[in-house]
């Protein structure tokens, strides 16, 4: 029995058992449904083995929405627990697990795939390419992320969730103070997903640098592509740090090394240091694609070209460099002295300058425009004021002497939620609404969409503004309860109402998807928003090869040129198109990775060795495989194009 004990949950509660049953039933329902409707073959051929960037993008999107739900439920539970003083809804242990998983799920398994979804779907279309540079690697990236996410998510029903915070500072996360396998899940699930992200980074840099349509020089790339390029550069240089860090953490937990322990020379500060060497650039990995989306949306619906294109690009490049120079501001209070703090305080505040440039450029894009407030535009317009509040409080936090008072308090929590929610979540929702017609062939309902946008943004203010005050009043973050005499009660109640409002807003988005799927017109043009860049120049739905003829580009707004200035986008004739073959290997290899991770978490050494060999066998097979892709003939292209044009 000893062997099975390790899989039991250390801190069970009825809620966990209920979710266990719910997960089991859902799994059975999905499997039964697939069998009953005979969809296994379809699933395998069209999705599990696909290397098409558009389908991979859609799979990222679905995973992100799923994880948004998971992270959102965590958030609601936390706010409910804190809504009144001395609440007994959750106990300390349960609360600790929830805020830990909330942080990781939202950042690594929600925001990351959401930006990956949009990058995957949009970037190749926006640069006029047929796919990404390494389509199969792209599939592997997705499946590694997915398996990492699944591995992380089973933690709360098998073996127990991590409970040392999303930052998992040692020695708290070490075996001495965190005995359950929870922190093993943290180390290994994030590691697997992180490898996937790193490969995405390499893939997209190569794609953007090498596969642009003829005529599209670097300075003629649409802004979202620029944002993606810079983001992926940050990914490539930041994620290896995480890889090493997690490996060291894993060794401390499983192999008895002393990197971060309190004995034999271990240094707990080093974990915090490397965590933020990765963690701070990670913030910009999330925010820059969001900036790209806003640039596209604002310029489309102001019906004007983006103001200050060059300074927009320049500011992003500067942000990408500065993002690596500021990490110490996450631990100003660690004692390193006034000089070090001063240096990092200045670099931190310096980031406000390029960010401010972007903000003003968006505002000036509205100038002399013809502003049409659609749902994506509404998100962008609501983003500007809310993000400004988040941004300026960031400058305040950057002042290290004052940071001694903000650090580890709800003020900090308020700041980063006011940055990440308007910055990333609004942008992703804007991008979702904006690109939905291209992805699925119908528009989301505008009326419901706008309601959702208003509810979400107002609820965001309501949920997080009070935290600025409770933080300044001495409420530390991550406290599972507080006494009535502290006076934090009213602030937290308002926060809870805001959080509930956010839930309503997200429910409305889900309803919108349902409603629009049922009732929206399928008869939409390729360019329903009257947009400006190349992704809108191809048909809806987008054919597998994206563009029958590679577009000729003259500016960053190629489609606009074609529409307004009669520029010929697609000169020439059809030629046969080379496309990559589907492959099951990325999926299978990632499944083995899942087994590898699971064995690692529970220290099952024999399965671990077997799965490790399995992974290398997959790589070896790939090395010897002859896969030259296939060609789509001119006849087939003609047929597809005629059908799409007729539709």
């Amino acid at each position, binding site marked *: 029995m000893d062997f099975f004990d390790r899989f039991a949950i250390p801190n069970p509660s009825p809620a966990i058992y209920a979710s266990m049953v719910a997960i089991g039933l859902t799994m059975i329902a999905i499997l039964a449904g697939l069998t009953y409707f005979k969809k296994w073959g379809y699933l395998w051929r069209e999705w599990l083995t696909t290397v098409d960037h558009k389908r991979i993008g859609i799979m990222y999107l679905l995973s992100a929405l799923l994880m948004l739900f998971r992270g959102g439920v965590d958030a609601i539970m936390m706010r409910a627990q804190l809504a009144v003083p001395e609440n007994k809804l959750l106990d300390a242990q349960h609360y600790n697990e929830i805020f830990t998983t909330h942080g990781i799920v939202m950042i690594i398994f929600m925001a990351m795939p959401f930006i990956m979804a949009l990058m995957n779907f949009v970037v190749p279309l926006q640069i006029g390419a047929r796919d990404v540079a390494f389509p199969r690697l792209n599939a592997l990236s997705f499946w590694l992320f997915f398996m990492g996410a699944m591995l992380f998510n089973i933690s709360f029903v098998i073996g127990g969730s991590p409970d040392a915070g999303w930052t998992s500072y040692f020695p708290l996360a070490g075996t001495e103070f965190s005995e359950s396998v929870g922190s093993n899940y943290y180390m290994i699930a994030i590691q697997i997903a992180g490898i996937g992200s790193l490969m995405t980074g390499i893939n997209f840099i190569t794609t953007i640098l090498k596969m642009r349509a003829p005529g599209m020089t670097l300075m003629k790339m649409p802004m979202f592509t620029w944002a993606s390029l810079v983001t992926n550069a940050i990914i490539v240089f930041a994620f290896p740090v995480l890889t090493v860090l997690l490996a060291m953490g894993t060794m401390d937990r499983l192999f008895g090394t002393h990197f971060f322990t309190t004995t034999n020379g271990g240094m707990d*500060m080093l974990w915090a240091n*490397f965590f933020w*060497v990765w963690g701070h650039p990670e913030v910009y990995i999330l925010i820059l694609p969001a900036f790209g989306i806003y640039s596209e949306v604002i310029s489309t619906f102001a019906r004007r070209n983006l103001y200050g294109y060059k300074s927009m690009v320049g500011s992003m490049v500067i942000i990408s460099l500065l993002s690596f120079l500021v*990490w110490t501001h996450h*631990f100003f209070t660690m004692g*390193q002295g006034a000089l070090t703090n001063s240096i990092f305080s200045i670099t931190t505040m310096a980031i406000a300058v390029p960010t401010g440039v972007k903000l003003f450029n968006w505002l000036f894009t509205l100038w002399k425009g013809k502003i049409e407030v659609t749902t994506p535009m509404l998100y962008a317009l609501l983003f500007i004021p809310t993000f400004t509040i988040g941004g300026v409080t960031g400058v305040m936090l950057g002042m290290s002497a004052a940071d001694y008072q903000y650090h580890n308090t709800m003020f900090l929590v308020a700041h980063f939620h006011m940055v990440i929610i308007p910055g990333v979540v609004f942008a992703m929702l804007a991008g979702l609404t904006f690109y939905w017609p291209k992805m699925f062939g119908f528009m989301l309902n505008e009326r419901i969409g706008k309601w959702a946008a208003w509810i979400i943004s107002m609820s965001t203010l309501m949920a997080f503004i009070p935290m600025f005050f409770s933080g300044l009043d001495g409420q530390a973050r991550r406290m599972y309860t507080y006494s009535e005499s502290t006076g934090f009660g009213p602030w937290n109640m308002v926060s809870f109402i805001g959080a509930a409002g956010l839930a309503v807003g997200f429910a409305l988005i889900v309803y919108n998807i349902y409603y629009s799927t049922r009732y929206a017109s399928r008869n939409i043009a390729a360019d329903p928003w009257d947009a400006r860049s190349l992704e809108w120049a191809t048909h809806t739905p987008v054919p597998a090869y994206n563009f029958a003829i590679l577009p000729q580009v003259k500016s960053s707004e190629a489609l606009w040129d074609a529409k307004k200035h009669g520029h010929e986008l697609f000169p020439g004739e059809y030629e046969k198109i080379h496309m990559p073959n589907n492959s099951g290997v990325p999926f299978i290899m990632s499944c083995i990775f899942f087994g590898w991770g699971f064995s690692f978490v529970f220290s099952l050494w024999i399965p671990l060795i077997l799965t490790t060999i399995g992974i290398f066998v997959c790589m070896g097979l790939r090395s010897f495989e002859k896969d030259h892709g296939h060609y789509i003939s001119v006849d087939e292209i003609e047929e597809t194009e005629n059908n799409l044009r007729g539709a």
Partner: protein
Amino acid sequence: MRELFPMKQVMGFVFSLLLTIVALAVYFLDMSITIGMTLLLVTAFIQAAVQLVVFMHAGETKDRGAIYTNIYYGIFIALVTVFGTLLCMIWGYL
């Protein structure tokens, strides 16, 4: 046979051996930590540059801009990470 051993690569190899021997001086000779570290830094970075240019052909295609940008960016951030970490973990407390 001769064409299999191009001058450039042979010289590169000889040069890298020389640099190794120079670096070895810090082991065999008695010198201060400052001089020793300077010597090691200089030889190591020249050595890396030799590999990059002579053996790895970093600059031979039209992607050289991207390749060099990538490497310089990487080295810059690597140095920031190494020295920043030392500043925050050790030097800042002295």
